[in-house]
């Protein structure tokens, strides 16, 4: 069975490359014919004219990596009996995707929501750290950097939007750009001022870890970013994005003792997202995931195996030690 990759930008091209390097047959589609042609030739992948044209008997998984909203195409693909791996980090899009559970179950397929760096790797890291505590009370995610241009625009908008958070058992929204916190990412990123932002991590993490009472997500930004967040982007986004990072902190208890555990990574955001989406697609392909909507980190997923696959694809995961936490 083959995997189709829709959207061949920074993330999609890496997913396609990772899949072909794992000897998985790949179909590629991009709305830009020249990009589609070049990528298909370079990776010896088969180009397809339309994302919805995939045949369920030869393609069982579609990875969506296009910058536009992914929920409507996901629904159409699921209704055709194809599993979908979504890389969307748009809050409204993720909300819509999470509501497709009944459709996916009815068609006996899986929808992996948030299979990128954030959300995505954040869930896998929380699941990894969760084994070190008896109870998770709080989950706090920090994100640094952006992938391609679409991701950079999303980052810009996120600082001006409403930041969702899970607080003492209910959803709250706080203004994006508020709540400055200095977070330490793995080197060479180091310390960054991070602010609340319109990030989808709390939505997926609350679903994966319902016992947590507080879940928040912050994004690194300069004060200039905050001041200009409500204006159009002053300069065009970088084509490739720079070094990015994901940092996850969980607070909980073990044997009645309070514990804080921190893990993270520092790598180009596009590479992180590509590795996570590829690992999720390989997992769906091997029928390791349940049907319905799944988010990485959920208890019914082989999170350890997926994280191992992500590490095998070149992502180094770090843990923070020695702080006495």
């Amino acid at each position, binding site marked *: 069975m083959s995997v189709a990759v829709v959207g061949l930008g920074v993330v999609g091209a890496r997913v396609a490359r990772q899949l072909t390097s794992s000897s998985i047959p790949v179909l590629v589609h991009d709305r830009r014919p020249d990009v589609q042609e070049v990528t298909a030739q370079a990776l010896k992948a088969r180009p397809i004219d339309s994302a919805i044209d995939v045949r369920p008997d030869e393609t069982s998984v579609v990875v969506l990596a296009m910058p536009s909203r992914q929920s409507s195409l996901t629904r159409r693909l699921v209704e055709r009996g194809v599993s979908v791996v979504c890389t969307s980090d748009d809050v409204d899009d993720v909300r819509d995707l999470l509501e497709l559970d009944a459709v996916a179950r009815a068609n006996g397929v899986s929808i992996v929501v948030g299979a990128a760096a954030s959300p995505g790797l954040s869930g896998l890291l929380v699941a*990894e750290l969760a084994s070190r505590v008896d109870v998770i009370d709080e989950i706090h995610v920090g994100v640094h950097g952006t992938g391609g241009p679409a991701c950079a625009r999303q980052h810009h908008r996120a600082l001006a939007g409403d930041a969702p958070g899970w607080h003492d058992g209910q959803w709250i929204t706080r203004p994006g750009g508020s709540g400055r916190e*200095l977070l*330490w990412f*793995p*080197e060479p990123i180091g*310390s960054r*001022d991070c602010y609340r932002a319109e990030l989808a991590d709390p939505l997926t993490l609350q679903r994966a870890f319902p016992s947590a009472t507080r879940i928040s997500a912050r994004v690194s930004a300069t*004060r*200039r970013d905050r*001041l200009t967040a409500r204006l159009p982007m002053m300069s065009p986004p970088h084509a490739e994005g720079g070094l990015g990072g994901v940092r996850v902190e969980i607070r909980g208890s073990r044997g009645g003792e309070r514990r804080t555990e921190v*893990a*993270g990574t520092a790598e180009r955001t596009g590479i992180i997202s590509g590795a996570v989406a590829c690992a999720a697609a390989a997992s769906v392909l091997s029928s390791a995931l349940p049907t319905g909507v799944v988010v990485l980190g959920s208890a019914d997923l082989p999170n*350890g*195996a997926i*994280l*191992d696959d992500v*590490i095998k694809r070149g992502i*180094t*995961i*770090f*843990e*923070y*030690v*020695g*702080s*006495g*936490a």
Partner: protein
Amino acid sequence: MKMLRRAIAAITLTGIAAAILRIRGKGGVPPERGGWRELTRPPS
């Protein structure tokens, strides 16, 4: 009137200085112990 102008000028200058510090200022204390170590997962 002269005093009012001086007050406005003082407030303006203070605002400009605060904005510059806010945009360009550095802050934060690095952790004094602990550090990042590569995560080793048990073989599956």
